[in-house]
């Protein structure tokens, strides 16, 4: 960090790069996503995950959720830059709220060869309470939701099974403050 101030700054407060989930309410208009994505790429910030959907049809509002990595100083700067964009109503770092909840949804398609694999897959799916979307002879599709961390663990566990083929799609985290 830049200057030393006579007021003590907690050590590392500006140095630690950490994961943040930002929730941005915007006017749903052409180009808004490009403005936000362009802001991130132009200023060298990271986007780890991105989710955009209309959430209020009457007032024409969308909620954009962005997972990003950066020092606290960088995250504050991202928020300030986002709030300068004309169609942006608000940008909130969920970590700064006293209470907030996060979820992500993931669809996993698993191709397997034998019964042993099938049993192991079934076992993990049961532990993680994933929902079966479709099951054929050699293919199963599950839907799992929860925190990103939970989904990561499920996928890690699946990867311990040898010889199966996994294809997946994730929504990226979404979150809400209370």
């Amino acid at each position, binding site marked *: *960090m830049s200057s*030393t*101030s*006579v007021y003590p700054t907690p050590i590392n407060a500006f140095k630690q790069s950490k994961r943040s989930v930002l929730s941005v309410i915007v*006017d749903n208009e052409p180009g808004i996503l490009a403005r936000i994505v362009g802001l991130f790429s132009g200023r060298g910030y990271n986007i780890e995950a991105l989710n955009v959907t209309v959430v209020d049809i009457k007032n024409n509002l969308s909620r954009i959720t962005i997972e990003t990595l950066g020092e606290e100083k960088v995250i504050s700067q991202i928020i300030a830059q986002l709030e*300068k964009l*004309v169609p942006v109503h608000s940008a909130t770092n969920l970590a700064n709220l006293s209470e907030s909840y996060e979820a992500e949804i993931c669809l996993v398609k698993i191709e397997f060869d034998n019964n042993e694999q099938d049993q192991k897959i079934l076992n993990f799916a049961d532990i993680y309470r994933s929902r079966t979307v479709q099951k054929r002879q050699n293919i199963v599709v599950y839907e799992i939701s929860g925190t990103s961390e939970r989904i990561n663990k499920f996928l890690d566990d699946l990867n311990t099974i040898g010889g199966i083929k996994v294809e997946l799609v994730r929504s990226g985290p979404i979150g809400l403050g209370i």
Partner: protein
Amino acid sequence: MDNENEFTGADILLKALKDQEVDTIFGYPGGAVLPIYDAIFGQNFLKHVLVRQEAGAVHAAEGYARSSGKVGVLLVTSGPGVTNVVTGLTDALMDSIPIVCISGQVPSHLIGTDAFQECDTTGITRPCTKHNYLVKDVSKLSETIHEAFKIASSGRPGPVLIDIPKDVQFAKSKYIPKKDISFREHRIKAGSKNVDKNFVQELVNHIKNSERPIFYVGGGCLNSGPQASQELIKLVNKTNIPITTTLHGLGCFPGEDKSSLGMLGMHGNYEANLAMNKCDLMINVGARFDDRVTGRLDAFSPDSVKFHIDIDQSSINKNVKVDFHTNTDITQTLKEINSFIESDNIELEKKDYTNWWGQINDWRKKECLHYEQGEEIIKPQHAISRLYDLTTQKDTFITTEVGQHQMWAAQYYKFSKPNRWITSGGLGTMGFGMPAAVGAQMANPDSLVIDIAGEASFLMNIQEIATAVQYKLPIKIFILNNEYMGMVRQWQELLHGSRYSESYVDALPDFKKLAESFNAVGVRAKNVSELDDAINEMVSIDRPVIADIWVDKKENCFPMIPSGAAHHEMLLSKYDKENPENQEKGKVLV
């Protein structure tokens, strides 16, 4: 069915411009804006200035805005017309200048087909405007234009672009006047109107207890309006606190005043930079801790408590962490500080900061702007000093290009009022000054407008001299001609072993003859004895003048904080040697 309450998009645009009290527009016609040009043909409230290249239009609009405090407006066609203004839009964004750019677009049904003179205008200009629009529905046009003007001029000002497809210019709708539009607050971002009383109280307490305070004032003070400058002068006079300004802050406080330490930063005054380095209280009024100002960040003003007043929240803690900040309008905030000090009758009167001023006056004794003017070759510093002495009694506006001449102008030309100094700071756009002078002269027809230029920058937008001649704008181009890209040459000398790679400008035109060929007037000074006559002649002629001033080719701009060095590591002359470790680090910086 024609309805008499309905107007074409082109007419709606003109009505909206009239409603916004726009009287001047800079532009260049083309296929996709012909309906608008047709509407301009049939009216007389709006004066259209035909530039010679669209870059000229955008810089002229900037010069107009800066010198008048109003929004500058320009009109360009699709494709190359609008891509030519990208540099100027970026310039206006960096320097917070309110302009509205209207661009034509190919008809809606051709968008996306790679049509003739089509480009993705909103895509290209998204990162270089404060906001932009593609208007696909003529019924939205009035509202869009009014919102664009509001956004351009509110909060931290900036450029806004409106892209209008040709079919929308022909299509008809009702016109909605400005007074009937209700703006949505979250889109305008005007900043808070309520001054933070705690901030004010905290600041005054710190002023009371500080020994070495300083005001650090930037372009935000200018953008808050002329009243901000009045409040600032009042506050400085009352507190006896020294004040330094950034390049864009020049003029917010009278440069000749005893409290002024002049400009700070890379080519700022020794006393200003040293005072910033040693102060115990820094009061930042609308400046953004730019890298040209701070020098090496880890050695920037290490012992000070920092206060920051800035309407733009993203300027807070971006480069330098501050201790107290407020995102309120500068005029209102300074007013509140002044009245707080008055009402509280604080013992500020007794504080004269004797030791602090003693120290500053010792630094002043270095005479960092001293130069030796010989009897023959004109020193560029001397040329600016004489220009200042011979024009200071007049109502003068100065624009500049970018480079050594710009820094010498900032150092040796003193400004006593805001909005008189129009320069490209953030982006550093060569070719800015002459079209900016065209704009400033349009806004101030009876004033003396001088573009202090270098010959290399001047050549970048030289075509605009024709605009000045056509509209009888008696702008003066004062060229410090050293046949080099001087600042490039200086850096090559200091950082690259005097290997002057491609910085010598061979085959220069004869600027006097060039002026004459454009039907302007050329004057020339080859040596010191001719300088005053050339300046006086230039000023006395009521036509565009190019003054070709031959200056010392090898002169460098000092003082200088080399890139990567700190405020207290300034070089005062070519005899000062830079710390070699800093030099290696500085080489990779800009």
